[in-house]
């Protein structure tokens, strides 16, 4: 700490803890430090992961066998709705923001985020937003039960707790937009001399593009839910035919947000995997430039495919053809990414530590989800697949062994940098293998029941679906409980373990591996010297 202290004498008293964190709870409430805020985000999303996972287990328990055993259908609908809202807005998004906070400044050689006070607010809004959201489950009129897509008119049948849902969504949106503005400002303004755009790690690039997607789409979503609010409470009829409105217009507006949103949930994952695979293949990322362009193409295409969620709403033929073709196009840049990862591994010198296992698991299972996505793009077939468990299987493959696996990979990859200790490698590998077996037992059979005609969002079903549903339920409980091992490994790593070097991994590349482990409270207070030969990615 000492050398940087001298460089940054702002005229304060030079106490020893001058640059260290405050003590006690106030450290976390008032912090403007990017590492503290990153930690807060990550803990928040870990807690929400278990809340959302608990809801998933309620759903799977009810679906374990035909007949209604445990819950009322209305509560079942609340669970499917809340599970999605919690997992999307409470787990995957905040976890990526947490990683962005921790890693982006260290990756580009910046001392902190560009807007540290805004950063504090971006985080601290979230726990309140989710407290309000979850509290609706305990209100008389119950939690939202019309699906996370909030389609009217169904969602307008909800009781007065609907107002709380909208309010909470607005706050989550504000938090995301503020976080995104901060990331954009940091990447554009905080890079030291020599750190050109094309020297940035892929994780930084993917987050830059994701931040733009968020800034572009969250306000659209905010507009849509505000129209729901006024339809419900103030007598407007945006989405009611009786008053000259159109319920399908909501779907168009929602999916104009919703489709870019699914890329918001996966682009940072691409960035993480693009960092991890080169490290453990001990070989630079193949096709860096094309990775950047592919990410940008995916982001662009994500704005012109939204109506593929609506092929059964009675769109004109021309619309169906356009959205089929544009959706199929997405597989080109996505394919480029997968091929680049494989080419990075090719003729490398690979080792398979836990982060690499999760990253490879990501590539394989995300590709399975991507291929079923290609099947779903085919409109005539989608008319059969739509709103069945085939769709549920598809998006869980891209989100669980996809987005969630990237988060686990990131945790194992960077936790030595965060804590200064190595995690328990044996337990980490065990966690990977148990999770991977159960996650497939959980989600693969859903393809079958979906094709065979089981609609999604139903609490009870015919006996022909019983076998596969039972298997899926076994997988769900196995996968759910094996995540307790993940928490144990994290706790154990925080408490102690083998000391980590600053490089941590033999093949590590990038500025975050040049600072000591654990990373000091402040890093890069003096801009690092970067020239054409500095390895930054």
């Amino acid at each position, binding site marked *: 700490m000492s050398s940087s202290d001298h460089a940054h004498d702002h005229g304060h008293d030079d106490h020893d803890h001058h640059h260290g964190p405050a003590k006690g709870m106030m450290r976390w409430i008032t912090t403007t430090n990017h590492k503290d805020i990153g930690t807060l985000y990550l803990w928040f999303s870990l807690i929400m992961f278990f809340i959302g996972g608990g809801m998933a287990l309620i759903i799977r328990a009810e679906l374990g066998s*035909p007949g*209604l055993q445990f819950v*009322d259908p209305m509560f079942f609908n609340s669970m499917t709705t809340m599970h999605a809202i919690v997992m999307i807005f409470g787990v995957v998004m905040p976890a990526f923001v947490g990683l962005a906070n921790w890693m982006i400044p260290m990756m580009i050689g910046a001392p902190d985020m560009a807007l540290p006070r805004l950063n504090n607010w971006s985080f601290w809004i979230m726990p309140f937003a989710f407290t309000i959201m979850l509290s609706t489950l305990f*209100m*008389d009129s*119950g939690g939202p039960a*019309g*699906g996370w897509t909030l389609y009217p*008119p*169904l969602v307008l049948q909800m*009781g007065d707790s609907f107002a709380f849902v909208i309010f909470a969504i607005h706050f989550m949106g504000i938090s995301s937009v503020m976080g995104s503005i901060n990331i954009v400002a940091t990447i554009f303004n905080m890079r030291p001399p020599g750190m050109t755009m094309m020297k940035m790690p892929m994780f930084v690039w993917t987050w830059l593009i994701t931040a733009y997607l968020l800034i572009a789409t969250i306000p659209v979503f905010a507009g849509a839910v505000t129209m729901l609010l006024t339809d419900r409470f103030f007598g407007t009829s945006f989405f*009611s*035919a009786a008053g000259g409105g*159109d*319920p*399908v217009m909501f779907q168009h507006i929602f999916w104009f947000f919703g489709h870019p949103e699914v890329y918001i949930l996966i682009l940072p994952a691409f960035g993480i995997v693009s960092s991890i695979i080169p490290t453990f293949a001990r*070989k630079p990322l*193949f*096709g860096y430039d*094309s990775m950047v362009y592919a990410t940008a193409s995916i982001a662009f295409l994500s704005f012109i495919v939204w109506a593929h969620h609506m092929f*059964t*709403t*009675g769109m004109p033929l021309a619309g*169906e053809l356009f959205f*089929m073709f544009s959706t*199929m*196009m997405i*597989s*080109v840049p996505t394919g480029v990414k997968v*091929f680049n990862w*494989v080419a990075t*591994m*090719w*003729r*490398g*010198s*690979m*080792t*398979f530590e836990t982060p690499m296992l999760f990253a*490879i698991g990501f590539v394989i299972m995300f*590709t399975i989800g991507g*291929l079923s996505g290609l*099947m779903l793009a*085919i409109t*005539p*077939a989608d008319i*059969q697949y739509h*709103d069945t468990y085939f769709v549920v299987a598809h998006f869980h493959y891209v989100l669980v062994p996809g987005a969630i696996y990237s988060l686990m990979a990131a945790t194992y990859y960077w936790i030595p940098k965060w804590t200064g200790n190595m995690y328990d490698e044996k337990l980490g590998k065990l966690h990977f293998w148990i999770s991977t*077996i159960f996650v497939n037992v959980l989600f693969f*059979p859903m393809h*079958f029941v979906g*094709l*065979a005609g089981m*609609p*999604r*969002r139903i609490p009870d079903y*015919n*006996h022909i*679906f019983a076998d*596969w549903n039972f298997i899926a339920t076994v997988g769900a409980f196995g996968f759910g409980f094996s995540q307790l091992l993940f928490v144990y490994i994290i706790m154990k790593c925080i408490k102690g373990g083998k000391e980590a070097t600053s490089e941590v991994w033999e093949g590590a590349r990038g500025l975050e591996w040049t600072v000591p482990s654990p990373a000091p409270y402040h890093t890069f207070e003096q801009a690092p010297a970067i020239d054409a030969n500095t390895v930054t990615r």
Partner: protein
Amino acid sequence: MTSGVYRWMLFVVFALALPSVSWAGYWGAENTNMPVGVTEISGEVHALHMRMFWWCVAIGAAVFAVMIYSMFKHRKSKGAVAADFHESTTVEVLWTIVPLVILVVMAIPAAKVLIKMEDFSDSDMSVKVTAYQWRWQYEYLDEGVSFYSQLNPAHNAARQANSDIDTEQFEHYLKDVDNPLVLPVGKKIRFLHTAADVIHSWWVPDLAVKKDAIPGFINENWAKINEPGIYRGKCAELCGRDHGFMPIVVKAVTQEEFDTWVSEQKMKTAAADMDAIRQWSKQELVASGERVYQANCASCHQKEGQGIPGMFPAIAGSDIATGDIDTHITTVMNGVNDTPMQAFASRLSDADLAAVITYQRNAFGNATGDSLQPSQMRSLRHGMRQSALDTPENNFKGVN
């Protein structure tokens, strides 16, 4: 450690291979793959699905094979030394162009099928399908026949929480209805879809039709069924509490059988008219009312009329069901705006309305002693409402 990794990998390969093999055994099983169906379109959709599936298997297998080969071959423990290449314009252009070509090959047949599916012209007959929470109404526009179709009452009783009824005794549990949609084979049937409350979606996999029913709008769809038989479907769009409990049954019959069925339906309508005219005893009304209540009201207001606090009001001891009968009739007939309570005037016959109102006023401890005759309901419906409401005591009370 290396051999340990190998052992694990082998284990996983087997763990993943076993379900795949068992799936192969299940290949044609009705619980594992999309049905081929009984229309030309459904067959083509199934063929598209299978072709896309095999494309995806081939692409996946190729990519994973290269990856797995690399993982075994290019590992540090085997002494592999990392190469230093990190780009190749040729390869990168190639793996952009080749997928594009594959996509074009996939898209052309898909577009052809889609264009066929969207051709609603030259239909032989039209059926209007109106969706309600949680039943379907079928109106044969050319034949003048109309009826409601909802979950088989026996299944409905079995599916209630803690019903203690074994659901396995029903082969078509949750896939059977009281009145199936009867259609002739070999005819191009145009469906007109709409909804009365929220969005639903009418889906019959064997016909490869799925179309959203949107309140205030009409969507088109069509099917030409090749084989007589019974084809089962479900509502596909989340539509509230009982979304999982509104099945569809299509009974495809020959043209002659269809014609016979149509005339039977017309006779039934005439019989319903007779019911509305004759005098009913109170016991008859209550007995019939209980059946109507369990089929139409119980999913919200609950079996014992207790409702669900905060969501669905109770009937037992409610102001409406124990107070002024006119308010009660108006509520049932017109529904309540902005709530799931629908207008039942167009949904239930005069006899059913009179029966269910009588039942509600005399069950669950509601001891009003009122009874209401179907003929009185008929008068109300036919614009004689005001005069009837002026002297409710004379008209509605103490009939029996």
